[in-house]
């Protein structure tokens, strides 16, 4: 039951709500479950609620690891 998608917070609204945008599609969701949400943050949205923020540093780290695997010739896991 985990269908969730990352979307960008584009506007903070009263009562713990916010507008998020995904490639031009906007939706109003609750951010009451996540602390310190700011415009520009990316949050994971599930059934109309933000569950957590995406950490851009960690996201970059993961992609870097994946890219490394693309060139790594030898054996071994990351």
């Amino acid at each position: 039951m985990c269908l969730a998608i990352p979307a960008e917070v584009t506007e903070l609204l009263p009562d713990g709500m916010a507008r998020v945008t995904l490639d031009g599609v906007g939706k109003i969701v609750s951010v009451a479950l996540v602390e310190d949400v700011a415009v520009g943050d990316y949050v994971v949205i599930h059934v109309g609620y933000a569950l957590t923020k995406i950490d851009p540093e960690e996201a970059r780290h993961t992609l870097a690891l994946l890219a490394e695997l693309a060139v790594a010739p030898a054996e071994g896991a990351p």
Partner: protein
Amino acid sequence: MSPKAYRRRLDIKNGRVDLSHGSGGRAMAQLIADVFHEALDNEWLRQGNDQAAFDVGAGRMVMTTDGYVISPLFFPGGNIGSLAVHGTINDVAMAGARPLYLSASFIIEEGFAFADLKRIADSMGEAARAAGVPVVTGDTKVVERGKADGVFISTTGIGVVPVGLNLSAEKACPGDRVIVSGTLGDHGVAVMSKRQNLTFDTAIVSDSAALHELVATMVTAAGSGLRVMRDPTRGGLAATLNELAQQSKVGFRIDEDALPVKPEVAAACELLGLDPLYVANEGKLVAIVAPEAADAMLAAMRAHPLGRDAAVVGEVVADDHRFVQMTTAFGGGRIVDWLSGEQLPRIC
């Protein structure tokens, strides 16, 4: 000198349809005249008959019928009226035929606002004029409140097929190319954005359009290489390909990377848990064409405003199981099966 005949105009702004407008009396005549005849105006309607008469030319004729029950009635990019005109013209055009005439029958719910009815009729008129295909005859009924979702529209369209052209759903053969005329899922997403419990905002508008002129260029370019065309409406591209697989007794191999989908449509589908392959289109077609004619036909499509994003998305293969197989953008394989039930937005 006789006194000037006074007939009070319908109060389009505030008035509503009531049962008297369906009873065959003066009120109905006025509704038809002030709303439908005005919007759809042409020489046949002006004759005021219950039927339209016209000469039948040479060649094979095509006839199609359709029902429109869309909700909401008004959506970004159109309404039930323009949709009815485009959809019916397209059904005729999918046979490679030149659409000639349309009929339209309205079942209107008691209490429906004249203003909305006029908007719908006006849209139909505009669409019909732009396409050069008049609505030459019609019918009006009014039913009690609650028995129709605002208005239902039923149509018939007729056209004539060029001599020698014989498109059919049984004609796809292994090696043929599958071409779509443009981006997938626009209409379904546009309509869904207006549904009550799924509100999301988007700039996506319905792709509702009459395709007969695009079809004419395709028929010329592909000649006998064109096997069959179909418009992927309800059930999307998935439904169309599965239908054709069964009817032609073949399989398909589709390349997910090749499917044209607008980023916003992809995003909306992600948010709702939908697959663009199953989302309705109202201004697109799928064409199966022999490999030697594919390039020429594709070029002709891309030269037309309604085919700018046309793309080859796959090919026909021999397959006893009639599977529509797809290579995912990720590199793995999956099938694109028939839609099960209604596509409900998924959260899982």
